[in-house]
C-alpha cells in the first residue's frame, strides 16, 4: 500500500476546515489544517503536501492571494497543484474571482460550498487520478 497523499487546507473558518477535512479523509487523503495564512505557509514548508487548498478571503480580503504567491515562490511550490476557494458573492453575482493573467498559476478555483464529489474529482485529476481507499 502506498502512503496516503497529503493535502493542506488553509481557511480561517474552523467549521469549514472540519467539514472539508471529513470529505478529504473519506476520499483517502491525509489532511493538514491551517487556520490562517501565516500558519499555512509555515505548514507548507514543514509538511510538504501534495496539494493545497487555500481560501481566498481570510483575515483580510485577498489574504489567500498572498499565501498563494508565497507558496508558489518556494521550491516545492512551483509545480504542486494549488486550489483556491472563493465565496461567490464578493462584489456581486457576476464578479466571482478569476485570477488575473500575471497571477501565479492556480490549478482550480472552487466555489464555496464545494460538493464532495466535485472536490474529490478535481483533486484526483490533479494527483494523477489514483483513487485511494
Amino acid at each position, binding site marked *: 500500500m502506498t502512503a496516503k497523499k497529503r493535502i493542506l487546507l488553509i481557511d480561517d473558518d474552523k*467549521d469549514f476546515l472540519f*467539514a472539508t477535512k471529513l470529505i478529504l479523509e*473519506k476520499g483517502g487523503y491525509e489532511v493538514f489544517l491551517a487556520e490562517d495564512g501565516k500558519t499555512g505557509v509555515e505548514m507548507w514548508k514543514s509538511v510538504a503536501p501534495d496539494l493545497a487548498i487555500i481560501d481566498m478571503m481570510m483575515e483580510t480580503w485577498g489574504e489567500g492571494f498572498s499565501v498563494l504567491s508565497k507558496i508558489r515562490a518556494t521550491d516545492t511550490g512551483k509545480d504542486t497543484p494549488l486550489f483556491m476557494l472563493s465565496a461567490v458573492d*464578493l*462584489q*456581486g453575482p*457576476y464578479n466571482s474571482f478569476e485570477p488575473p493573467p500575471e497571477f501565479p498559476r492556480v490549478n482550480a478555483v472552487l466555489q464555496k*460550498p464545494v460538493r464532495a*464529489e466535485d472536490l474529490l474529482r478535481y483533486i484526483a485529476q490533479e494527483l494523477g487520478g489514483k483513487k485511494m481507499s
Partner: protein
Amino acid sequence: MMKPPTPLVLIIDDESSIRDGCRQALEKSGYAVLDAGEGDEGIKIARDAKPDIALIDLKMPGISGMEIIEILSRDVPDTVLVMITGYATIVSAVEAIQKGTYDYLPKPFSPDQLRAVVRRAVEHRNLKIETRRLREEKERMEKSFITFVSHEMRSPLVVIRQYIEALKAVAGDRLDRDMTEIIERCGARIRSLETLVEHWLDISRIGEGSFAWKKEPLNLLQLIGRSTEEMAPVCKEKGIRLKTDLPDQLPEILGDQESLLRVFTNIIGNATKYTPENGGITLAASSDDYYVTVCISDTGTGIPADKLPFIFEPFYRVRGKEERQRGSGLGLTFCKRIMELHGGEISVASTEGQGSTFLLKFLPHMRTEQGMGRTSVDPATPFRPF
C-alpha cells in the same frame, strides 16, 4: 435629549439703529448675536463663526446684499439666510430666494416680527441638519448592512452546506431513505435561504448604487432567445407552451445582459407558477419612436385587481401563506429595480382567471455619428407618451 445650544445670529446691515434694535430684541429672547456694518466684514465673520442664521440687508453701500447671499450660500451652506429689505419687490425677493435665501423681512419690522422670522429660520436649519444626519445615517446603515449580510450571514450558510456535503460523504452509504431525504430537504431550505440573501443583497446594492452592471448595446431579441431557451425545460415539465411573437428587427437598447436575462427568466418563472397545464406563456416584442417594449403574458390564474399595485413590493405574496415556499418573495422587486436602473419601466395588467401580462419598456439606444453610446431620451426625465 440635550438642550440645543444657543442659536447664533449674524446681522449684516449698514444702519446701526437696525443692528442695535435687532441685537436687543434677539438677545432678550436668548439668541447670541454678531453684527457687521458692511458686506465684506459680514462675510468674514460668517466664514469664521458659521452662524446659524444670517440677516442680510439687501441695500448697502459697497458689496450688495444679493452678492453677500450668493457668497454665503456657497461658503457657509448650513447658515440659513434671511434678507432684510426696504424695497421688497417681488423681483428682488424671487432673486434672493433663488440664490439661497430662506425668508425675507420687509422694513420696517417689529421685534415680534423679527423674532418670528428668526424662530422659523432656526427651525428650518434644525430640520435641514437633522434630515442630512438621518440621510447619512441611513446610507451608512445600508452600506454596513450589505457588508454584514455578505460576510456574516452567508458564511454560516456556506458552512452548513459544507457540513451536509461532509455528512453525505462520510455516512451516505449508511443512511436510510428517510434520513437521506431529511438531509436533502435541509440542503434545499438552506439553498433557498442563500438565494433570499443574495436577492436581498442585489436589491440593496441597486439601492445603494454598488450593483455591478455593464451598460452595453444589446439586442433584446437575442436576450429573449436566451431566456426562452433557459426556461423551456421548466415549461415543458409543467406542460406549458412557451411561445414567442417577435419582429425580425428591434432597435438596440443599452443595458446589462445578465441582469436583464434574470428579469426575463424571473417573470417567465413566475408565470409558470400560476399557469395551469396546457396553458401558455408568450413573449412578444415591439418598438415605436419612444420605446422598445417586451410583453410577457400568460394564460394563468391572474392577479386580483386589489393586489396588483403591490406585487413589486418586497415579500408581497398575492396568495398569502399558501405560497410560502415559492421563491424568495423578491423576484419582482428585483425586476422593477433593474428596469429602473435601465431607465425603463415595468408594469402589469391582469384579469383574474384569464392571465397576466407584464410590460417591460426600454429606451432605445441611438448611436450618434461618432458611434458613441447615447440614448435618445435622457433617462432622468423619461418621456411618457401616455
